[in-house]
């Protein structure tokens, strides 16, 4: 069903030996092997790029790894094929699979089958492969979650008997489950390639949906003729704006009422970016659906487009949202989606009193999430006629509310199921396909699937907001920062999803890092006819910290201070109250942030030691060769959930063998959230992690949760699980006390037992307690709880980068990167490290290589992994992750967040390291080799000009002989 082709009239037979069994399938001559294998139920073979770049579809063809997306199925005739499904030996995992679990090498697990097959092939030829060979091999497997550190370690554990590098944190000694680097609860199904992702199902009669994208950046649909498409045999639904309700909404998956403007429509008579929806079809195959799109005739009135955000508010600029029914737009007539302005103290006065003031402008670009699993939704009407949507989302409950509103159904009639997710990074904090897939399913009365191709993912999904930031910081001669001002112009693209809140975060999460008594932040978020921006790990902070940390470094240089020393002097610290956060809430007034835990001093100290700051900073980078080295530092913070807004709930039910069903609204998108929350619950209940059966993110069977965003899951959903577990624990203690004939306060739980704490040392097993409750008391031990916080405790991070600049080509290579992070108590240190390493990989990509490029018509010219350059295993530097433990009073077992904060650090640390290496500051991203080389040429011209100035005979002579 998931194939590109149905069985056409030119059907041919394909005979293969697959996973040890002989199979014969009818295929079409143009079928690709990937499609045939998935059609035949080998779901471990993943569809991710379809251009042979990413390796998620890897299979072994005659024992050699190949990308099945670029192999025609007929080529495999007579061949032997191995997929991940055949790697385990019955119920026993292969050592490679086990190593991946032990080392935390699988996060979302979408790329894991390909990695495991590639590893098997490598180890067969080179059983003792070293790190270089392993990285060369893994270069064919893109992974957006791990930064490749743990996968490389997992393979080396086998080939070189390498050790498990995993920080042991103090919490491990205090607790039985929390603080331990345990395997993911969903790990086995990921490493064995079990069908657990959205698209890993065969639905009877399922249709394939496709969206006709706009070829124009800005146009009105004058006429649209779908009659030929409708008449095409095999087409079951064609929708245009004429066929669907017109309900203004935002696609941003945020708590109601959303702080994003309602400026989007299921389908509209106007298109506002290249890739915007024009029409949608559902047909019996992908080929028919694509043919139907080709048959839709559209006449456009092409309108002038705005591609440059600095032109958006100019007089006479075309108005992108001229429709009367959109709401919540700050100033639609001037293309301003959102505007924020806040001041604490008086910055102007403070700048006058400062000894040094540095003011700089920074330009940041469009980065794409490039999660391995593209957006995909499958919608159908269940046997009760309820619209059920199995979808790759971070926000199942928000999606339910949004879909119900857009399709004008009662919430009761909509169910959202979130299976395993192949990465999201904020890109899936968006109701992107659920509405249109649902509309097609309702129209066709058959199940419909829409799955973005990689190209569509780039064109149609979301990206990081490009910003122009003006930062001005003033300090006293002793280094005390007295004023910090940031002014941001950003573009949200054609729709205002997350427009106010991302940019609000640029202020509220960045400026308060330093204790300046005077702060000012303003931002203008404008519409342009560009791809739509949205939520992306860091949520406005990578841009802000790049600018702020570069300026702070410059001030240190101006004052002749060590950059670490200047930061130490000014950093926010324990007991401080950040008032700016209160001013800059999520589109509304927020709450002040109290710093109740702060590991930043430890992060700076341990990070500096790890990279060898003192010695490397002093020893001058080599001037003799064309390779120059430098090191740089940056500090950053984030939040742990949106204070006063984010909340979640958990439910626990005890089974008669002493196991527990843990039902979570939380949306694990590959981060390990299910595992971490289960560890919190298990610790509270005194049971081992294997007793937890986790089910999450299903609007029918789990309680509410806002979803996975804003670094909220551990602290909020984990907090809810802890509360629920405490309630259930009380029920267990009550039953056990009666069984043990002691008072409840004499009963403790641990190691799957209830035992007395008095001298008698009696114990009953959890299973006995459950059976007693169920069959004697006739009571189901169960309970649920909700949780929210009035504050958003920041995790702290210090990032250190060492770079090498090739002064002949301008290429920057990151040699080493150290992240020291305070996430409170790491519930699962291995998972926490994985979050850091993946964030760092995306951060380095943001700094150096990843960029969505638009041509002069607004069309992206690199919508594929050939030219959108994410970093591979071979590109990654030596990574060191240090967890600096603190105890956060507001977090479950002292935990704060970790998923976002480490992405903020690499870019400024790299920029500062480049300055240390070659004396040039880069204020535009990404720092491309071409830019570096140009700047180096200008630098040498300037130096020559300075040397030529008639200062004295000697100088001139020296210059001439240089």
């Amino acid at each position: 069903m998931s194939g590109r082709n149905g069985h056409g009239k030119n059907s041919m037979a394909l005979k293969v030996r697959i996973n040890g069994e002989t199979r014969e399938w009818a295929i079409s001559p143009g079928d690709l092997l990937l499609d045939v294998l998935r059609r035949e139920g080998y779901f471990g073979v993943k569809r991710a790029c379809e251009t042979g770049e990413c390796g998620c579809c890897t299979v072994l063809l005659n024992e050699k790894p190949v990308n099945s997306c670029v192999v025609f199925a007929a080529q495999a005739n007579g061949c032997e094929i191995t997929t991940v499904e055949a790697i385990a030996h019955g119920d026993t995992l292969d050592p490679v699979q086990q190593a991946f679990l032990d080392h935390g090498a699988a996060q979302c697990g979408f790329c894991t089958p390909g990695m495991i097959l590639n590893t098997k092939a490598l180890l067969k030829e080179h059983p003792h492969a070293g790190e270089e060979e392993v990285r060369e091999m893994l270069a064919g497997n893109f992974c957006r979650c791990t930064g490749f550190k743990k996968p490389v370690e997992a393979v080396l554990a086998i080939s070189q008997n390498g050790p498990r590098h995993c920080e042991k944190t103090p919490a491990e000694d205090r607790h039985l489950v929390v603080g331990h680097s345990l395997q993911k609860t969903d790990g086995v199904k990921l490493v064995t390639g079990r069908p657990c992702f959205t698209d890993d199902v065969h639905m009877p009669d399922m249709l394939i949906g496709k969206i006709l994208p706009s070829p124009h950046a800005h146009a009105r649909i004058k006429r649209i003729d779908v009659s030929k498409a409708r008449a095409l045999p095999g087409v079951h639904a064609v929708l245009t704006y004429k066929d669907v309700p017109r309900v203004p909404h935002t696609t941003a998956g945020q708590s109601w009422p959303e702080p994003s403007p309602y400026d989007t429509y299921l389908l509209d008579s106007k298109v506002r970016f290249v890739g915007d929806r024009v029409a949608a079809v559902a047909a019996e195959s992908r080929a028919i659906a694509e043919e139907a799109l080709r048959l839709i005739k559209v006449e456009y009135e092409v309108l002038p487009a705005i591609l440059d955000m600095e032109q958006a508010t100019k007089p006479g600029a075309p108005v992108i949202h001229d429709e009367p029914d959109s709401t919540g737009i700050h100033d639609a007539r001037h293309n301003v989606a959102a505007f924020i302005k806040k001041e604490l103290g008086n910055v102007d006065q403070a700048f006058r009193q400062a000894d040094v003031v540095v003011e700089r402008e920074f330009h940041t670009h469009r980065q794409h999430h490039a999660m391995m699993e593209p957006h995909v939704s499958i919608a159908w009407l269940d046997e009760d006629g309820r619209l059920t949507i199995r979808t790759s989302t971070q926000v199942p409950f928000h999606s339910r509310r949004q879909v119900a509103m857009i399709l004008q159904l009662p919430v009761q009639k909509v169910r959202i199921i979130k299976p395993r997710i192949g990465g999201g990074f904020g890109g899936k904090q968006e109701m992107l396909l659920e509405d249109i897939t649902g509309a097609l399913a309702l129209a066709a009365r058959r199940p419909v699937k829409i799955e973005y191709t990689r190209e569509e993912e780039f064109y149609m999904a979301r990206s990081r907001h490009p910003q122009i930031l003006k930062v001005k910081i003033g300090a006293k001669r002793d280094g005390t920062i007295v004023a910090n001002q940031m002014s941001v112009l950003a573009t949200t693209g054609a729709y205002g999803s997350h427009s106010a809140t991302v940019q609000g975060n640029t202020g509220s999460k960045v400026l308060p890092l330093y204790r300046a008594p005077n702060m000012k932040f303003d931002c203008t978020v404008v519409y342009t006819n560009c791809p739509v921006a949205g939520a992306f790990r860091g949520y406005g902070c990578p841009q802000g910290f790049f600018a702020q940390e570069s300026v702070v470094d410059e001030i240190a240089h101006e004052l002749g201070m060590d950059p670490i020393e200047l930061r130490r002097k000014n950093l926010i610290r324990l007991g401080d109250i950040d008032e700016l956060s209160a001013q800059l809430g999520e589109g509304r007034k927020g709450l002040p942030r109290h710093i109740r835990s702060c590991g930043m001093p430890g992060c700076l100290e341990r990070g500096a030691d790890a990279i060898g700051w003192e010695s490397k900073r002093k020893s001058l980078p080599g001037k003799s060769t064309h390779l120059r080295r430098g090191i740089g530092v940056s500090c950053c913070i984030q939040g742990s959930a949106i204070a006063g807004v984010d909340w979640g709930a958990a439910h626990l039910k005890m089974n008669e063998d002493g196991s527990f069903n843990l039902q979570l609204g939380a949306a694990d998108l590959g981060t390990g959230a299910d595992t971490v929350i289960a560890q919190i619950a298990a610790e509270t209940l005194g049971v081992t992690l294997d007793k937890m059966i986790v089910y999450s993110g299903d609007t029918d069977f789990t309680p509410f949760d806002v979803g996975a965003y804003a670094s909220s899951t551990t602290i909020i959903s984990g907090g809810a699980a802890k509360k629920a577990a405490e309630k259930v624990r009380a029920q267990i203690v009550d039953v056990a006390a009666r069984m043990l004939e002691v008072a409840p306060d004499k009963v403790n739980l641990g190691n799957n037992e209830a035992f007395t704490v008095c001298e008698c040392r009696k114990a009953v097993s959890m299973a006995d307690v459950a059976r007693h409750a169920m069959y004697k008391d006739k009571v189901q031990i169960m309970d649920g709880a909700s949780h929210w916080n009035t504050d958003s405790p920041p995790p702290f991070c210090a990032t250190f980068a060492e770079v090498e600049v090739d002064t002949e080509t301008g290429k920057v290579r990151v040699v080493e990167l150290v992240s020291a992070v305070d996430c409170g108590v790491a519930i699962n240190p291995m998972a926490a490290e994985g979050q850091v390493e993946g964030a760092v990989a995306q951060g380095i990509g943001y700094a150096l290589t990843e960029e969505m490029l638009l041509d002069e018509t607004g069309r992206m010219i690199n919508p594929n992994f050939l030219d959108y350059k994410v970093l591979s295993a071979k590109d990654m530097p030596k990574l060191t992750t240090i967890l600096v433990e603190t105890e956060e009073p507001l977090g479950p077992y002292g935990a704060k967040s970790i998923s976002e904060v480490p992405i903020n650090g690499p870019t400024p640390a790299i920029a500062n390291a480049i300055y240390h290496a070659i004396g040039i500051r880069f204020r535009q991203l990404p720092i491309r080799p071409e830019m570096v080389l140009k700047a180096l040429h200008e630098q040498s011209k300037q130096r020559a000009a300075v040397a030529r100035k008639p200062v004295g005979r000697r100088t001139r002579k020296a210059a001439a002989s240089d």
Partner: protein
Amino acid sequence: LQFSSGLSVTRRLENAVFDHIQAFYQPKSVREAVRMLQSGPGRVLGGGTDLALLQDRSIRFLVDIKHLGLDYIRRDGNGCDIGAACTMSALEHSPVVRGLAGGILSRAAATCGSIQIRNLATIGGNLANGSPAADTATPLLAMDASVIVQTRRGRQRIALREFLALPLPRRINGGLLVQIFAPKSKGRAGWSFQKFGRTETDIAVVNVAAGLGIARDGSCAWARIALGAVAPAPMRADGAEAVLVGKALTRSLIDRAAESVAREIQPITDQRASAEYRRQISQVLVRRALLACAQEAGYAL
């Protein structure tokens, strides 16, 4: 001059299905394959790594050449014969190819995509269908390679340089590219392959292959400089070679040759780099390549 140095940058959004392909042939002999190819709008299928991305809906059938016994690598008295269906992996690991011209063809093949791609992609496909950035074309050009094309009338040998001047997909008289001949270098020589990409696993922004022959008197006996991704097809820098030949090798002579290269190439601006930057990088890579050649030939500069 309108061309892109890689995949088409403006692929249509909607087309991702190969339902227009009505037949898949697996001929048993080269003659049969040639006959099929002349029978209509078909395409040669080597590894498939390029073809499976091709958005050309006029193609009606595919001719798989993997079963024609064209995956050999044979040492020849004067060099090496390579079957057109040899994969990049085979070239990468073949002791014969590694021993040829300083192993630059092996090294170039090893940079051609990931292991999964190198297990599929063929040298024939890389030459017949490859972009201006094709990684094996550059070293083979520097080695003065030739290709053999089988047509209905028989086998025809032409210089690779001429073959690469053909429009894509490169075919001669409806024939099939069956073999590549890579000559071995004579006398005291050094070779180098240099590639510049945005990341470690990138298509070349620029690639350079070079060879230098050192005469008895220590002067440059011959020079070969080939570049990829800087012109409509992989090219030789004749002017730069002329700068070197017959002269005593010095750093400044090498600099002059590199400067000549920057004048000879015709790079474009695309999503990977600007023309100006390609020019600068070409000069740097050529200089590095020539220095490495001299060093490999044991010539102290």
